[in-house]
């Protein structure tokens, strides 16, 4: 999404009929016409939304040079999902008091090593933490 070059506290004119849309070349101005109300600078707003959207992988890149990284991203995302699910299950059991002290130590060691191994794999494939996620549309993010 392009940034919006509009002033702070922008307020548009009453839009009781279709907004005038300028020429194809001036899409930024066109967006400005669509702002009914904004608290803060819409340009910053747009930039933040863009960061939020681009942080999530939309699809696997089919470029042959990137396909390995894309597949690694998908596989590691699924492994991370399983790791987090298992960890949450363990935390729930601990909260219920159904896990012995020995088991807590052993489970903690296991999950700690898994997390470290995931960090190593992310470094190997050049992935950041936020990249290990999938946008499930109306359901939100996977992780």
């Amino acid at each position, binding site marked *: 999404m392009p940034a919006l070059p509009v002033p702070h506290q922008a307020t548009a004119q009453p839009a009781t009929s279709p907004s005038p849309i300028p020429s194809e070349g001036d899409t930024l101005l066109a967006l400005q016409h669509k702002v009914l109300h904004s608290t803060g600078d819409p340009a910053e707003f747009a930039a*933040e939304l863009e960061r939020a959207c681009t942080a999530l992988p939309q699809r696997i890149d089919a470029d042959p040079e990137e396909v390995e990284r894309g597949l690694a991203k998908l596989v590691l995302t699924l492994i991370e999902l399983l790791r987090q699910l298992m960890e949450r299950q*363990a935390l729930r059991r601990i909260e219920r008091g159904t896990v012995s*002290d020995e088991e807590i130590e*052993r489970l903690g060691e296991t999950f700690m090593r898994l997390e470290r191994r995931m*960090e190593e794999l992310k470094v190997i494939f050049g992935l950041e933490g936020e990249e290990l996620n999938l946008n499930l549309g109306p359901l939100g993010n996977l992780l």
Partner: protein
Amino acid sequence: MLYLYAIINRPTAPLPPNTGLGGQPVQCSAWGEVAAIYSHHEGPAPRPEAAHLWRHEEVVERLLDGRGVLPVRFGALLPDEAALLALLGERHDRFVAGLARVAGRVEVSVRALWSAEAPLPVSRPAEAENGRAYLARRMAEAQAREARLREARQRAGALHAALNELAAAHTHQVLPHECILLSAAYLIPREAIDPFRATVGALGAANPDLRLLCTGPWPAYHFVEGE
């Protein structure tokens, strides 16, 4: 190929001239009580570039003046007019019902960003951490996440309740991303645009830590399908 922009009620008078993608003239074909707005298209499917998206939007918005419009999402192609008329015939009653639902109404979009001043703790295990300490830390992080989620649901729910009062229909998401508290679209009567804007302004004043962006009026893209 035919590039499709919108479905409207059968027009009772010729539509004003309108230019579509690639400079092609916009045309209208009717079947029963409904009509499709399209232009001819050659070559590969149009790419979702800003200029193309705005051209599509402009064609649809010019139809909005005083009539119900079911906008078609960007990129819909049909092979020829026979296929177009078949589509209108097959879905005629659904289109009629959809047009009645959006008649006199427009879509407005609201996004609320909340402050990232208190980001969720994301820590890494210390080298000397034992298993018990690791799980205790993870539990504290999980509880912080849960508390933040509860707060988000409560605040987003309050925003949505106020905004939804003027709406005939809505679609909304709470926390689609960590920094986005609410992402919503509302179908409101055209005459309610100014009151809706005032409501957003009041919510912004009452929630100075949130940043609200309200855009519109848009064609009812989120409300084309019925219940």
